[in-house]
């Protein structure tokens, strides 16, 4: 069957296209305009924006920690409903896997990456991903607080050994990439360490945090993983932590490195309260470090729950919980911390955080290296995305928001001085073309022939947030799944994974290690395809050669 999207403004930065024209779909893929061929189905999208389906590279949507968050905060479902003034209350919010898929699809997102899968908990993460409908998914496997790696580094074993271990862990946990979260910090916390920075050593191992990041960065690079090492830095959320972020950027040393939710590290110690936005300085460093990519982790106001495998940071934040309850989970490696939080526009610190995120978006100059996230649900639930798009594209709107915030907070940021407005091609780059490139998804994120027909169509509206909240049409693998912001068909996507080459001897070594250390067979952490319960649940992404 041939489907034609006729007469829309096609914005496809990957193919340098921004013009009114048609898109043709056949068998789930985008095809060249077939000469003389009549389309079986035509959608008139004149006056509308046509882009590839959006890709979210960092959103905590699945896994034991997320479900712990759901169980800790059943009341969040109601809170999510009032995130948008004027929004019609939904009887069910974004707080289960099915709603997650529907709400993402309604906004025109077709791929989302769960960025924190602990190897021992990988099966549950994949089961949850399998119950998120419509969108494609991927998991980033977390290493860096695990005894095996720390022992390799303590024993000064070869880079080959680290590489084989990374490859084995990726294969076992079915990850698309590797994430490191406060490298060594969760392990140190088990030894009652209460603060941990880039050059601090993990007690008992004598390995500094920096060495863990560097070893993983090298292994990821040498294995040819398409996605660079994904780093959650030390000292998240602390005043003055911009120094940690700058040091980590410098530590990239010209090799690819992705820094997650950078907004949470954009804090200086200036101003009357010793807390200020250092986003301008950080943006400058990002602009200069061409091998580094970042995502923002924008804060928006309202009730949320922070979910992070940075156990140390979550523990230190426990007494700021709003409402006053939390779960701190010392896991086999990272574990997690679940701390509810309400960001308030009239709170000095929260207002600085909000402004710092927007500064990072607006002062970085390359939409191919700066990614759109709220670190869902940590800065805000992903349902807040439409409002953020509107803020990025409209400086008048930013000014209006700023007038509602504490003046002294705005004085320790540069936001008021920034006039930039994101253009449509920049939005398309940041949320489509660039993420596909960063994840190695060659047939996603663009509208050229051969691309998977994941397509979002938006009706222009003076209320830009409304436009993004309710896509006019969304196609997943060429099938219409959303019309006017409503899901019309519930399909199920797949999870992307990679399978880099590794020495087979690692398997035996791991078997011995698990037997000795845990007294357990390796199988407890396996993710058998048959256990997922949906047909063909994985899609292999090739490694670079």
């Amino acid at each position, binding site marked *: 069957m041939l489907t034609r999207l006729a007469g829309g403004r096609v914005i496809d930065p990957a193919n340098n296209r921004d013009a009114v024209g048609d898109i043709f779909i056949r068998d789930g893929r985008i095809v060249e305009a077939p000469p003389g061929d009549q389309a079986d189905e035509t959608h008139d999208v004149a006056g509308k924006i046509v882009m590839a389906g959006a890709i979210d590279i960092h959103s905590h949507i699945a896994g034991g920690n997320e479900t712990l968050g759901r169980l800790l905060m059943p009341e969040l479902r109601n809170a999510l409903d009032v995130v948008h003034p004027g929004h019609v209350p939904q*009887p069910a919010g974004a707080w289960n896997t099915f709603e997650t898929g529907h709400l993402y699809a309604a906004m025109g997102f077709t791929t989302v990456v769960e960025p924190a899968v602990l190897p*021992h908990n990988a099966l549950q993460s994949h089961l949850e991903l399998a*119950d998120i409908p419509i969108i494609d998914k991927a998991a980033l496997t977390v290493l860096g607080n695990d005894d095996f790696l720390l022992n390799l580094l303590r024993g000064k074993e070869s880079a080959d050994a680290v590489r084989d271990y990374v490859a084995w862990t990726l294969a076992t946990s079915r990850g698309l990439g590797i994430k490191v979260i406060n490298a060594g910090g969760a392990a140190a916390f*088990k030894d*009652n360490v209460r603060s941990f920075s880039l050059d601090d050593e993990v007690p008992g191992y004598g390995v500094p945090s920096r060495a863990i990041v560097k070893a993983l960065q090298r292994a990821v690079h040498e294995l040819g993983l398409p996605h660079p090492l994904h780093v959650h830095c030390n000292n998240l959320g602390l005043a003055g932590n911009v120094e940690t972020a700058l040091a980590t950027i410098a530590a990239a040393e010209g090799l690819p490195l992705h820094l997650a939710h950078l907004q949470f590290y954009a804090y200086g110690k200036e101003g009357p309260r010793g807390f200020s936005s250092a986003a301008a300085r950080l943006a400058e460093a990002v602009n200069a470090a061409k091998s580094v990519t970042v995502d923002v982790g924008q804060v928006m106001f309202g009730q949320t729950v922070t979910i992070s495998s940075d156990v140390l940071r979550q523990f230190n934040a426990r007494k700021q919980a709003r409402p006053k309850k939390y*779960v701190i989970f010392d896991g086999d490696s990272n*574990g997690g911390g679940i701390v509810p939080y309400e960001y308030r526009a009239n709170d000095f610190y929260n207002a600085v955080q909000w402004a710092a995120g927007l500064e990072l978006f607006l002062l970085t100059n390359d939409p191919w290296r700066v990614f759109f996230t709220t670190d869902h649900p940590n800065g805000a639930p992903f349902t807040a995305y439409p409002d953020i798009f509107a803020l990025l594209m409209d400086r008048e709107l930013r000014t209006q928001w700023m007038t509602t915030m504490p003046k002294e907070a705005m004085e320790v940021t540069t936001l008021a001085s920034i006039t930039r407005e994101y253009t449509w091609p920049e939005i398309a780059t940041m949320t489509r073309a660039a993420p596909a490139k960063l994840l190695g998804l060659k047939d996603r994120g663009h509208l050229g022939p051969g691309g998977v027909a994941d397509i979002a169509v938006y009706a222009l509206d003076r209320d830009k947030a409304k436009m993004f909240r309710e896509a006019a049409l969304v196609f997943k693998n060429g099938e219409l799944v959303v019309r006017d912001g409503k899901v019309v068909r519930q399909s199920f996507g797949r999870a992307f994974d990679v399978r880099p080459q590794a020495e087979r001897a690692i398997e035996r070594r791991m078997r011995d290690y698990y037997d000795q250390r845990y007294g*357990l067979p390796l*199988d407890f952490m396996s993710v058998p395809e048959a*256990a997922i319960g949906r047909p063909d649940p994985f899609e292999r992404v090739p490694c670079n050669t």
Partner: protein
Amino acid sequence: MVKAWIRGSATELDTAIAEAAKLLAASRMPVIAGLGTDVAGIRAAIALAQRIGGIIDHMHSAALLRDLDVMRESGMMVTTPNETRLRADLLLLVGSGLTEAWPELPARLFGDANRRIVWLCPGGAAAQARALQNVSIIGDDTADLPILLAALRARCAGRPVAKTPLAAKELDALAGDLAKARFGVAVWSAAEHDELTIEMLCGLVKDLNDNTRFSGLPLAPPDNAGGAQQVSGWMTGFPMRTGFARGYWEHDPWRFDATRLVESGEADCALWISAYGAHSPDWKRKLPLIALGADPDRKRSEVAIAVGLPRIDHPAVEYLTATGTLGAVEARQPTNRISVADAVTMISAALPEAPPC
């Protein structure tokens, strides 16, 4: 070979499935209860509940919800069985039902001779406790536990206490030991404690972390109750005792208690699932009952279908107490006995209307 019965008489599987679908379709408020099954079975059951506007409840919900009530009221610090085994220098064992909840506990946690064990109120497990090395047994009757924990928490925080079942000196020594632990772990089973006892214990653990490291290890009830809670958490956003009667998921531990719904007459049909053993519903009132079980009660049921035992007859994903995670387990002796997931999916497919989007 499939074994199925309608009102006590053996029948073909398809006939039993069709009859079950008919009963559920005719029901205005069906409950899907028991839920003693693997993750695939629970996923299928929750999908069916969504399809028919039903209520889901697990046979061990009461214990699950006691831990959960503490967590969602005031929070909790927890760790894994593996970290406990590797790292704990002090185990605070609470109550008498621990080895019942986790039979491998002694093998997994008692091996380390350097590990100090404090056993509070071991009750029926006192003989087992006394046989351990390096153990302090404090109290006996679990009835003393709430006041003991309260006194201990007060002393750990440096607050004075009135008379307790324990001599003041002994109490202070114990408080000192807890404070000196480098990584202590408190182990309990919610099957035998009320919410306030659990909350006091969890509060003690949290307080201890102001200076040292301490964590908790709650033991999940059997029949894959831990798995049911996780699956329900991600599929509905809520734990057990959740319903789709109004077209969206709602959670209410009282309203959606399956036994209460049946006894009060609100529920008019029940699908009871017990694949791990011959558990029967604890309600007395008669209502149309569909039973899926290892050995279903065919006398009491309109429809009964014998299903395979997860991890024996067919591979299964279930909550593993040894790791505190969901794990995939191979079948020990594979047979072609039908799984709960397949039976429920067949019932769902036999329902009259097409599934909504």
